[in-house]
């Protein structure tokens, strides 16, 4: 059977190192910094519209940016204090966005507007989640309110909770389960209830036995709740891969997970749902894993959104060695940032600092056609052939290879013995097809 499946698609993934050095480190709350800079674009979709101006007093939870479109999310102040201006910020993805700069008063006074939302049905549940500013906390940052209201809601029967945490180093989701496992279950119950789902599947990689045991215990006696143990092979946390592992269903090419009857949410997002419905406190803090060989004291920290990367690293003992690379996110899909000034955003789950040596990968050499990228690709694509098609500038050929399914997981680059930046080439191929279509 397994062999038969391999005949269709080997999808071996990449055997990345786990490096979960911080898994046993309980989350530490970082003190509120003197200044925060909160970007208006911390999600996929339209940036939020700024609704405060210089001189305004804000409190924790005050709306400072309203959703700027259907696919968008509001932004809240993470501190109490005074707006001192706005600033343009360069995001890791290369886009620029406006950020509200707030001088904190250190009081952390909570806004009067923060109160538990009244939720009675699907519509009011979705409205509440939209107002909470929740976006996919696993890294993608897709507005949760939009995700929870799919057009084909009646066909959706399963909530897949993504607790695979397949990226090396990161343990923030693991800590969420260990410290707030009850919230996760509570949040899942809410989603299940208001979306009228029948199943909740929590997918956890086998390298987190403590989390598996804890979530299994919490799921006991709950109808429709199961924990799915996933192999410890990257990228188990990729949405479509997770759906296949957990339910056996395939998300049709070009469609959303709801087409396979699933909604996928990150485990931290689900935990947040429970807390928000209980308290009404919007998304203003984030748990982060801070690690890497150039950080003095790797930690799991909870920081207010808008704290600068530099201050987070200083809170973790500062730089142990000269920093060569700072990654916002994991080492497989995270973005290398230009400096340490970038503020912590909603979808950040890690800050990794690599020293000079680890910052630079070995030089690429000629492709030896070993086919390891084909074997590794979790989507069953053929990166080596796509690269050849890009070389000959053949957009039709690239398209025929289903380049649209590439999710830039980086497995192909990781396994490449010639050390070629295959994933980058795949992105170039995608861009090429997009431009050719114009």
């Amino acid at each position, binding site marked *: 059977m397994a062999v038969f499946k391999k005949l269709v698609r080997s999808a071996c993934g990449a055997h990345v190192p786990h490096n979960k050095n911080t898994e046993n480190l309980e989350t530490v709350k970082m003190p509120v910094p003197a200044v925060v800079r909160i970007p208006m674009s911390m999600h996929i979709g339209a940036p939020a519209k700024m609704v405060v101006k210089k001189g305004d007093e804000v409190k924790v939870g005050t709306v400072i940016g309203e959703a700027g479109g259907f696919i968008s999310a509001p932004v809240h102040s993470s501190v109490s204090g005074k707006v001192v201006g706005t600033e343009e910020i360069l995001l890791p993805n290369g886009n620029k966005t406006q950020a509200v700069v707030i001088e904190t008063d250190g009081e952390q006074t909570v806004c009067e507007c923060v109160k538990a939302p009244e939720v009675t049905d699907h519509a009011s549940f979705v409205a509440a989640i939209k107002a909470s500013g929740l976006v996919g906390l696993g890294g993608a940052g897709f507005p949760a309110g939009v995700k929870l209201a799919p057009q084909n809601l009646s066909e959706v029967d399963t909530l897949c909770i993504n607790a695979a945490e397949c990226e090396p180093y990161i343990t923030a989701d693991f800590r969420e389960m260990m410290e707030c496992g009850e919230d996760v279950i509570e949040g899942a119950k809410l989603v299940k209830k208001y979306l009228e789902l029948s199943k909740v599947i929590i997918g956890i990689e086998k390298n987190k036995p403590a989390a598996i045991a804890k979530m299994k215990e919490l799921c006991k006696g709950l109808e429709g709740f199961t924990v799915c143990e996933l192999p410890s092979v990257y990228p188990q946390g990729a949405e479509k891969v997770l759906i296949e592992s957990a339910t056996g269903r395939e998300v049709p090419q070009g469609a959303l997970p709801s087409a396979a009857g699933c909604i996928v949410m990150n485990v931290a997002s689900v935990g947040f749902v429970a807390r928000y419905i209980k308290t009404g406190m919007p998304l203003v803090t984030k748990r982060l894993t801070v690690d890497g060989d150039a950080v003095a004291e790797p930690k799991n920290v909870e920081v207010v959104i808008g704290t600068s990367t530099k201050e987070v690293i200083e809170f973790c003992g500062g730089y142990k060695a000269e920093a060569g690379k700072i990654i916002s996110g994991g*080492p497989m899909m995270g973005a290398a940032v230009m400096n*340490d000034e970038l503020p912590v955003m909603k979808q950040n789950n890690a800050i990794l600092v690599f020293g000079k040596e680890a910052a630079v990968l070995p030089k690429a050499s000629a492709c030896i056609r070993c086919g390891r990228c084909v074997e590794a690709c979790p989507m069953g694509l053929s990166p080596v052939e796509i690269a050849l098609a890009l070389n000959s500038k053949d957009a039709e050929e690239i398209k025929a290879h289903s380049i649209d399914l590439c999710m830039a997981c980086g497995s192909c680059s990781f396994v490449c013995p010639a050390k070629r930046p295959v994933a980058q080439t795949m992105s170039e191929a995608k861009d090429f097809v997009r431009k050719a279509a114009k």
Partner: protein
Amino acid sequence: MKLFVSSAPHITGKDSSRSIMLDVIIAMVPAIIASGLIFGLRAVLLTAVTAAACVVFEYLWNKALKKEQTVGDLSAVVTGILLAFNMPSTMPFWMAIVGAAFAILMVKQLFGGIGYNFANPAITARIILATSFAGSMTNFVHPTQTIDAIASATPLAANAAGAFAEGGVPYLTMFLGTHGGVLGETSALALLIGFAYLLIKKVISPAIPVTYIATVAVLAVVFGQDPLFHVLGGGLLLGAIFMATDYVTSPYTLKGKIVFGIGLGLITMLIRVFGTMTEGVSYAILIMNLFVPYINQLTRQKPLGAPKKVKEAK
């Protein structure tokens, strides 16, 4: 603060082109030792000369064309050893060097170097040598003779001459390799040790060798011949384990590898049973090498979520 910025991923696996080639070389060491024990020190010397010649030719090519030096990836060493494995121990050194020049300069570098050759350099050079110097390439010595070697046939050739009917070469002799033949092919034991090493180190997938050997065995039975004899008696194991699995000239997917292996077995047996030659492995590999682009096209994986009938890529 000056930070290095590059696109993800920011980590890479342990294997490199060089480490893979080194693993292949290590896997060939048992066969090198076996050739020394069976045919004497000259066998090892011939292997060393051929490998060194391959490296020197690649070095000179890169130097002359002002290209980046690539001999460090060790692929030329692999080609050299494999080419030597296809020669009898009596092969004159100068002929071996001519073979190395063919393999590296014509088959590999003229087509763009590593990753671009459409056929296996060692196999192609072997065929060129066999057609150019037919006598020297089949001047097999009997292992028990040394300096004043008398010509001895490979078990396959002996079989064609009717020796098999008289009892032929015992299985144990074929398994250990103490019979006439080219350097690398005779000892099944040494080749299997190398095979095991390659599998453990995940350098190659078992798909091609297993389907190739199985096809040969099955067809032998179909043609009413001894399958074990066909597996052990000629160059099948050497070809199946070390030459048909060459990355550049074999298909990417498991499905493709199986098709490739079956095709190899089929051609090998057609040549062995119906052809005038006693051995068919090298021609089978060369012919199937040429089919690889087509096999790759026809045996693609089905992407996750793609419709059952995908529009065929060119």
